[in-house]
């Protein structure tokens, strides 16, 4: 909600600076951003009463002198003869109507009304609708303007089952379904109550006679409607949070006053319809309860002074909650009021004494994680949504899209996707795992924690493992070797079913943790973990490029020196490097080294010439050593 600083300080006698005002609004819990004179307020959903100039001013009154004098139409108003019936008073316990006729609808706006449109960045419609919007900004109460001449029959408010198209005053057509609170006339829906009026009865620039409807709708009767019908509505936003049921006559008198500021009024009539509703909420005064909640020793007079500053009244040793404060019901609510006034940051901290408890690092999951991480596996976390409606899948009623309308019943598809994703990024040795709860339904929903792991590609990036492949034997050695019988079932995932040209075999394991016997875990050790919050460096999205070099070392005494030199080469475009081949030629008394560099830039795709230039820089000092050569170079 956008509020103009100049409009707000009209109510505040001290005329605080923007900084002072901002600081006090933050203390009260009203987050905002400031752009020039505009305060863009982000209010919590319990503070619907603050969605207006007067609402914020009421809260600020605890810190500043705030004048509550709003110019009203103070003349006597005739009673309105209106054919109206409220068929659903539970949804609308109080409603008032104001009928005004003016001589000429072509008017020049006063500066305060003109400025409002600059503040909120809205376009103008017609004098009555514009005043209605301004009143909502000023007082927080939405009103709706019907062109009086367009309604000839009885007006009915009802909560009815709809299946009809409704054309809004903004011209959009929505299909109303299920139950909605509506105003009807002659069985035609003329307004979607609390959300938006209809086109057929909307005011235009020619309207001279208006019927202003001003209501309190039960928030639960309105909530969700604007979203359901995709209608952006400031009125719905306010009604959903609760408006002031006691303010209708004041609001309509203010409406009349603003009309009077702009046009000559020919006639004005008013009528209010009210059902019995529980208006007064009283809470016994008990400062001890407040102190017990906050951990303070506030005195009674201080307590009452703070509440009085916020607009609370007192009678018979009870606190009378203002009609606009729907968020205040209990002493905890009052304690929050006091804490806001004192300032959360000014309340002294008091320590609690709790004894530390053991963490759960020794459990099965932690042991599995340690085993896998120590053996080069990386853990992934996947979203559980799937397009597969497998047997036992839990269906999402309102998915983000049709590809995510079920809960996965297995980790397999996610892990295959992770594998292919990394293969497309030139990863040639992939070992990943995920441990996650999996949910399925039979008669009831079943929860099972599962381990899934997938491998493919080279066994490792060192000269022993480079030419070997990750395979069934590898997984058997890792998981099944020390057990009397095979616990982990290893399956091959055939590439033919996947969209990939790679040839390396893929092996997969999935097992519920509860199916792994204790004897397996008893052989695993627990490691105390400590976290090192490294300084993350963004990864490159550009392709990498590998270069392999075959060194012939004739003076074998320098072989370790050469390997050290290679291992210590670093550069911003070298992503990785490793010795992938080591061969002793006993006959020729030489050693051959195979060394791979992987190049990648954060800025671009590297060209061959850029890589070759870097290669020359790397190799020159090594090739200057006697007895070291690269055949062919």
């Amino acid at each position, binding site marked *: 909600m956008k509020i103009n600083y100049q409009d707000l300080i009209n109510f505040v006698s001290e005329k605080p600076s923007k900084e002072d005002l901002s600081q006090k609004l*933050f203390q009260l819990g009203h987050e905002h951003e400031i752009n020039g004179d505009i305060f863009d307020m982000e209010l919590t*959903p319990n*503070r619907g009463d603050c969605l207006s100039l007067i609402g914020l001013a009421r809260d600020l009154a605890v810190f500043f002198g705030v004048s509550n004098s709003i110019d009203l139409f103070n003349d006597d108003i005739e009673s309105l003869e209106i054919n109206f019936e409220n068929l659903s008073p539970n949804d609308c316990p109080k409603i008032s109507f104001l009928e005004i006729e003016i001589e000429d609808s072509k008017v020049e706006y006063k500066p305060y009304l003109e400025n409002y449109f600059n503040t909120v960045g809205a376009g103008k419609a017609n004098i009555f609708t514009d005043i209605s919007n301004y009143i909502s900004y000023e007082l927080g109460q939405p009103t709706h303007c019907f062109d009086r001449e367009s309604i000839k029959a009885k007006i009915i408010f009802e909560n009815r089952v709809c299946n009809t198209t409704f054309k809004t005053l903004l011209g959009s057509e929505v299909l109303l379904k299920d139950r909605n609170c509506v105003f009807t006339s002659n069985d035609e829906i003329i307004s979607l109550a609390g959300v938006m009026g209809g086109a057929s009865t909307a005011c235009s620039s020619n309207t001279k006679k208006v019927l202003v409807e001003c209501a309190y709708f039960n*928030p*639960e009767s309105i909530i969700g409607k604007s979203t359901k019908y995709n209608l952006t509505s400031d009125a719905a936003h306010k009604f*959903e949070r609760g408006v002031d049921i006691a303010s209708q006559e004041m609001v309509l008198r203010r409406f009349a006053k603003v009309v009077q500021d702009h046009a000559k009024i020919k006639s004005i009539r008013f009528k209010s319809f009210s059902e019995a509703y529980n208006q007064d909420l009283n809470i016994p005064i008990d400062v001890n309860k407040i102190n017990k*909640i*906050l951990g303070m020793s506030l005195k009674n007079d201080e307590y009452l002074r703070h509440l009085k500053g916020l607009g609370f009244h007192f009678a018979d040793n009870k606190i009378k909650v203002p009609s606009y404060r729907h*968020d205040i019901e209990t002493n905890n609510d009052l*304690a*929050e009021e006091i*804490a*806001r006034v004192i300032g*959360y940051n000014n*309340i002294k*901290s*008091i*320590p*609690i004494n*709790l004894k*530390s408890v053991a*963490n*759960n690092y020794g459990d099965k999951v932690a042991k599995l994680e340690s085993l896998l*991480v120590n*053996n*080069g596996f*990386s*853990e*992934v*976390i996947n*979203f559980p949504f799937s397009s597969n409606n497998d047997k036992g899948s*839990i*269906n*999402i*009623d*309102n*998915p*983000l899209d049709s590809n*995510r309308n079920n809960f996965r019943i297995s980790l397999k598809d996610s892990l295959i996707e*992770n594998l292919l*994703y990394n293969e497309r*990024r030139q990863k040639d040795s992939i070992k*990943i795992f995920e441990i996650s*709860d999996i949910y399925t339904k039979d008669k009831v*929903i079943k*929860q099972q924690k599962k381990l899934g792991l997938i491998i493919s590609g080279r066994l*490792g990036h060192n000269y022993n*493992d480079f030419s070997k492949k990750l395979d069934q034997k590898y997984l058997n050695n890792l998981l099944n070797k020390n057990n009397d019988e095979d616990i982990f079932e290893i399956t091959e995932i055939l590439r033919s079913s996947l969209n990939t040209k790679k040839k390396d075999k893929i092996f997969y394991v999935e097992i519920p943790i509860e199916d792994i016997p204790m004897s397996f875990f008893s052989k695993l050790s627990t490691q105390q*973990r400590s976290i090192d*919050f*490294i300084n*993350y460096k*963004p*990864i490159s999205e550009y392709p990498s490029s590998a270069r392999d070099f075959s060194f012939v070392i004739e003076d*074998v*005494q320098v*072989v*370790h020196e050469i390997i050290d030199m290679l291992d210590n080469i670093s550069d911003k475009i070298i992503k990785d490097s490793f010795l992938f081949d080591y061969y002793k030629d*006993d006959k020729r008394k030489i*050693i051959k080294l195979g060394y791979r560099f992987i190049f990648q830039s954060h800025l671009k795709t590297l060209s061959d010439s850029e890589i070759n230039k870097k290669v020359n820089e790397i190799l020159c000092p090594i090739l200057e050593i006697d007895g070291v050569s690269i055949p062919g170079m």
Partner: protein
Amino acid sequence: MSNLDNINLPATSNESGTLHPINQTKDYLLNLLADFGFKEVHGPEIETEEFNFDMLNIKKSHPARQMHDTFYAEGKKNVLRTHTSPVQIRSMLESKPPIAFTSAGKVYRKDDDATHLPMFHQVEGIYVDENVTFANLKDLMHQILHELFGDNVEIRFRPSYFPFTEPSAEVDILSESGKWLEILGCGVVNPVVLKNCNIDSNKYSGLAFGLGVERIAMLKYGVNDIREFYKSNLDFLAQFK
């Protein structure tokens, strides 16, 4: 020429993998809270509206209960939990004060854009005993934030609104660039919630708090894009050794 047999083979080291940075951060927070006396409890990700909303005083009219904010499942019989608080409700129903629980894990909101994901992780804590106050909450939050961000970090409490706590607060820290960053939500447990869990709210009171694991991980590691955590890119994951 030297004898080749005298040349040692080069050393090979096993390349270790990594735990996911979100799980590392989650475990770190749970460990920290265990030191503060909070014991971890567990519960399901697929919940009922009763435990996810009603028991936590989140009324039918609350915006969070709308279809655009919450994933509903199985013909509205269930919800994907929108926070880990229902785990605490389940645990409170089975315990008597004093209690100090943490709940941690995946939660779901119907969101998917540059800064919001449909699934993320929370760590929440609740402490219920006699005479637990807002002043106690402040002290505990200060201690936790000093552990996380250092003794000199500047901390700010702001009033906020959660249906299950009253008073409620959001807590910010001042970043090095001079900007306030929202870190956690907390409050005094609403007595309605205690009553719902059969705890005598005249005798007992509580404090509760919740941290977003991704938020903490992003700040501590310097990851700017939340989506990076869920691409399963091995180059990304390899950094968190």
